[in-house]
């Protein structure tokens, strides 16, 4: 079985969010970059677990990014995976990214494609579903559990009202979230090993974008907190009822 895990890079969760270039660009200066947590903790670690159980599995990682993502993809390889592929392009809109990954997935005949639930910078929740749409494969989003038996996957998916357990025959695309696996820390052996594993760089397919970010905005500042003395906690209920009119 061949598994492809989609890895994206995002600003560290504590990074200051600011914009330059007339609010058209994210101010990336000095920002620490990490592997998108959903891709790392859930998609990648679950795929590694599957390979640990069945060593005949081939596990490849893919990112659509320019060379400045190499450190991130190496870090992902240090956790596990046989090979990484970087499609050498600025990740533009979701459709562009998904089209690049779909092209590689089709050529490489991967049977299972994992993505994260969403990127924590663009918050699209889109790339996985688009890859599935482009390849006309079944897609299960928001997977919290994943088991493999032969060519059949059993997936627990989170929905508003609770959970659904679904069975799907592969090939297919799965977006992963909390519950799939536990976060791992790369060890020295992994870090050293990652250096010798291939990172293939391929040039992008010509694909148009369907959307474009015109500008960013920061939310309006809060006007300050109204503190209520603890002895008089009932006052909060009055304010929520009479002033905020929420209860």
């Amino acid at each position, binding site marked *: 079985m061949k598994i492809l895990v989609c890895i994206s890079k995002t600003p560290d969760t504590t990074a200051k969010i600011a914009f330059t270039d007339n609010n058209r660009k994210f101010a990336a200066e000095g920002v620490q970059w990490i592997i998108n947590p959903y891709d790392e903790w859930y998609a990648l670690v679950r795929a590694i677990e599957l390979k640990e159980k069945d060593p005949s599995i081939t596990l490849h990682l893919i990112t659509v990014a320019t060379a400045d993502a190499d450190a991130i993809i190496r870090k992902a390889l240090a956790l596990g995976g046989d090979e990484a592929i970087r499609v050498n392009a600025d990740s533009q809109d979701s459709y562009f990214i998904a089209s690049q990954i779909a092209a590689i997935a089709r050529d490489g005949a991967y049977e299972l494609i994992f993505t994260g639930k969403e990127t924590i910078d663009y918050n699209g929740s*889109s790339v996985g579903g688009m890859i599935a749409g482009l390849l006309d494969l079944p897609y299960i989003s928001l997977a919290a559990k994943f088991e493999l038996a032969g060519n059949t996957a059993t997936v627990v998916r989170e929905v508003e009202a609770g959970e*659904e*357990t679904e069975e799907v025959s592969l090939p297919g695309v799965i977006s992963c979230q909390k519950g799939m696996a536990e976060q791992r820390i790369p060890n020295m052996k992994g870090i050293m090993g990652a250096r010798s594993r291939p990172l293939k760089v391929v040039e992008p397919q010509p694909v148009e974008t369907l959307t474009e970010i*015109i500008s960013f905005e920061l939310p309006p500042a809060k006007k300050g907190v109204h503190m209520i003395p603890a002895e008089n906690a009932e006052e909060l209920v009055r304010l*929520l009822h009479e002033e905020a009119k929420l209860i």
Partner: protein
Amino acid sequence: MSVLIFLDHADGHFKKTTFEALSYGAALAKQLGVTADGVLLGTVTEDIASLGKYGIQQVHQVNQESLNALDTQVYIRILADIAASTKATVIVFSHNSSAKAIAPGLSARMKAGLVTGVIALPETSSGFSVKKNVFSGKASANVSIKTPVKIITINPNAYHIVSGEGSAKLVQVSINTDASKIKLKSASKASGEIPLTEAEIVVSGGRGMKGPENWGPIEELAKLLNAATACSRPVADSGWRPHAEHVGQTGIAIAPNLYIAIGISGAIQHLAGVNRSKVIVVINKDPEAPFFKSADYGIAGDAFEVLPKLIQAVKKLKGVA
């Protein structure tokens, strides 16, 4: 030309977010000077024609029980067909678990630009651009959609429900739905009655609550306020509360009208999931807790003393003994 609104349902009922999508879609149709229609895959026990009161003219229904279980490939094929036959130029979903499953694939199939997590009506004076949340609620982006057909998913609680008078015409669509590659084996319901992402009020507890045995007052307050319950990540990681309650950057993002945070420090990753709440109340025994900086109302005090007083006061307000 028309706006097509996806009518999401579960257990025979339309979801609350469906009424938000309807209200948004109808307002958008008015803005564009076109008509608004709904599309319903599967069966409901509710009166469909009465959806007209949200401002739509027709509901296109594929009346088949098998569609009550969501299969993305089947849904995408049907929706693409109906979107084409109704000449839809904008397709509107609520940004929930169904939309996250279907909308991206539909976008790829129709080559229709998709923007998810939209929080306001689009700007249509020149082109078509929508505002969406990015950086996990720490900022928003204006995104232009360049294709003739556009797909948007709107955030729960971002658009208010508007209803008036009216009745929608029901149009039955017969489509051959081919065999599904996904089999639904079972479904289980979450413990809370109100889905977290749909709740207007959320009562949330952090590590300051000390242990799972102390959640009684949080649940009681939530029940009195018709609220859902949530928690911080370490609380879910320690197994004090179910994972589905974990809010924040790596959990669920919510935007209720009122978020009450009890014994939560207000770490940046927690704020990322809740900072779109309209009003935030923070109860923390440390007056220096960072959460107070993002709060509208705050009480610096011990949760175990403050909560009983609040519960009493809410009971009095609601006339519950």
